[in-house]
């Protein structure tokens, strides 16, 4: 099911009478989610990603704008008539029902022509349980399950009525690190097998990058960039996106462009094209540094962290916006741990130049 958001806006009126500023949680979203894809809504807390999800589910009404599932305008439909499955951050399983009853619940609520025979319901419940691999736990209560198992039950409950769209709200945030890796693969597998258009919300960029077909990066209710994960990483449209994606995070310097040359401090570090002379912000990915005795960028070496496959060099530079610069280089390079200075040359495709005023990408 293709999902289209058209000028979708959500404004929360101020609750405080003395301070009537409204909160624009979602500001004029327009984008189309292609059929059968897994989409990650990514952003820091308060960026409107959960609100977007709730509007897609029908639990919140948009202030303006429309939502389409395929050709159907579903904006006015209540959640029960919208045919979506929603997995909550805390799973929201019914604690007094067994796993089986939890999964059956959405089916028992179907009305009219969708109404199912009892056997058909059971058959579908067991099929779905098999899909998420909890068919052995059907008689347990949610309190007798681990977090990962509860998560699967929640997904099964959302999937069992074959929703047009599956929505996941921070699906991995309550799991421990190991289970998180495993579960995100699992979500990807389930999504591939069912081919249901899936939208999930996360603030964890690694999570979003690893499983999404498309990432929507959001900030303060405004969409920043929509693209494939690698494309967003390689070509951030602005400083926010560049900073938000990538671990370790991007290194940010104050710099300037003069006569098609990029300067950091007084050092001429890179040739650039089509950028007018101005003060700029320079972002360099950790992997964009090359250790080079004659390199243009000099930094004060403070520490070298050996990680086996590669080496992380921690250094400082007066023009860096962060207290430290972290660069990752191949472990084959020989580094003099005792020296005070370290010099780098830069990989041009890992260097981004942003306008100092608008923070938009210039190069």
């Amino acid at each position: 099911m293709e999902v289209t958001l058209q000028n979708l806006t959500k404004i929360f009126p101020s609750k405080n009478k003395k301070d009537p500023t409204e909160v624009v949680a979602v500001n004029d979203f327009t984008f189309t989610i292609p059929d059968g894809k897994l989409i990650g809504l990514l952003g820091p807390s308060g960026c409107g990603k959960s609100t977007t999800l709730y509007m897609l589910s029908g639990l919140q009404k948009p202030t303006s704008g429309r939502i389409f599932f395929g050709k159907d305008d579903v904006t006015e439909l209540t959640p029960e008539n919208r045919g979506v499955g929603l997995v909550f951050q805390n799973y929201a399983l019914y604690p007094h029902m067994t796993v089986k009853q939890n999964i059956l619940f959405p089916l028992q609520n179907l009305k009219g022509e969708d109404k199912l025979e009892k056997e058909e319901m059971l058959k579908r419940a067991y099929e779905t349980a098999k899909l998420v691999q909890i068919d052995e736990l059907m008689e347990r209560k949610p309190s007798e399950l681990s977090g990962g198992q509860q998560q699967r039950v929640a997904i099964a409950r959302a999937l069992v009525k074959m929703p047009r769209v599956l929505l996941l709200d921070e699906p991995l945030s309550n799991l421990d690190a190991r289970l998180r890796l495993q579960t995100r693969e699992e979500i990807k597998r389930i999504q591939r097998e069912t081919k249901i258009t899936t939208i999930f919300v996360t603030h964890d960029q690694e999570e979003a990058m690893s499983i999404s077909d498309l990432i929507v990066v959001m900030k303060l209710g405004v969409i920043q960039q929509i693209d494939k994960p690698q494309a967003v990483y390689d070509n951030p449209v602005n400083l926010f996106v560049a900073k938000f994606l990538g671990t370790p995070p991007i290194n940010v310097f104050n710099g300037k462009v003069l006569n098609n040359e990029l300067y950091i401090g007084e050092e001429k570090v890179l040739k650039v094209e089509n950028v007018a002379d101005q003060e700029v912000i320079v972002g360099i990915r950790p992997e964009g540094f090359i250790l080079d005795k004659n390199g243009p960028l000099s930094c004060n070496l403070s520490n070298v962290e050996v990680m086996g496959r590669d080496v992380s060099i921690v250094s400082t530079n007066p023009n860096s916006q962060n207290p430290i610069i972290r660069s990752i280089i191949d472990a084959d390079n020989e580094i003099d741990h005792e020296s005070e200075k370290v010099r780098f040359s830069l990989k041009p495709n890992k260097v981004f130049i942003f306008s100092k005023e608008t923070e938009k990408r210039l190069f």
Partner: protein
Amino acid sequence: MKIDENITMHQQDMQKVSVRQKVVKILVQVALYAFLILMAIIVLFPFYWMINSSLKTLDEYRLSVPTFWPHVVMWENYVNAFNTANLGRLFFNTMYVGIVSTILSLVITVLSAFAFARLEFKGKNILFAGLLATMMIPGELFTITNYGTVSAWGWLDSYRVLIVPFLVSVFYIYLLRQNFLQIPNELYLAAKVDGTSDLKYLWKVMIPLALPTLISITILKMMGAWNSYVWPNLVTRKEKYRLITNGLRNAFTETTGDVNYPQQMAAVALVSIPLFLVFIFLRKYIMKGVSRSGIKG
């Protein structure tokens, strides 16, 4: 060899310590149970005395030195008590009033608690605060105005006068609302996405989750109906509508003005049986309800 000896000595030490611990533990247990038994005797003595008295003849009952076991066991007292006091009718009336008022009261309590806990409407908080404020007024103060109202409506001597005035209990609404509020909001949202209406959500999710509280309310309400005295005494004159407590009060006064206490005791014992059974089988829920109301009420 040396090491072995050391080990055995160590083991002996350990054994001594553990023996001492055991003795202390047993002593503490003995003291604890002695105390509990003493308290139980104090609590149970009135019940024993009730049954003891109910089996005596009137003459034996009047002995200046009370006997701890009846010389002649008078089972007839129970039969006489049942007939003299017309206990069958009284039981029926009390059960009828108790069951009907409990059911209606539960419906009202559940629906209003749901509204206050879950629905959004204008003036919700003010209305709720107003309801809570009525709890400040002692119940006795209502009696006179309520009496005025029901007699003006011509409701005296009827079942409805025994049922209707006490259907709404702000305390139960409050109790249940607090319970409902503890149910996470996500469950409601999940149920919405799963396709339920508000009422169905209430029935399928909230009521099962709040069941212990509802059972507590049912028990408390039933016991309240069973034990109510002042109001039924005030609004019913005809035998037909008498409840058990009032019936017992006057049934055993003989023409001479004497009261046949053994028979009255037998009647009281009969009347206590249902409450006793309720307590035995449902004490878990009673304790829960009471302790809960202790925290929040």
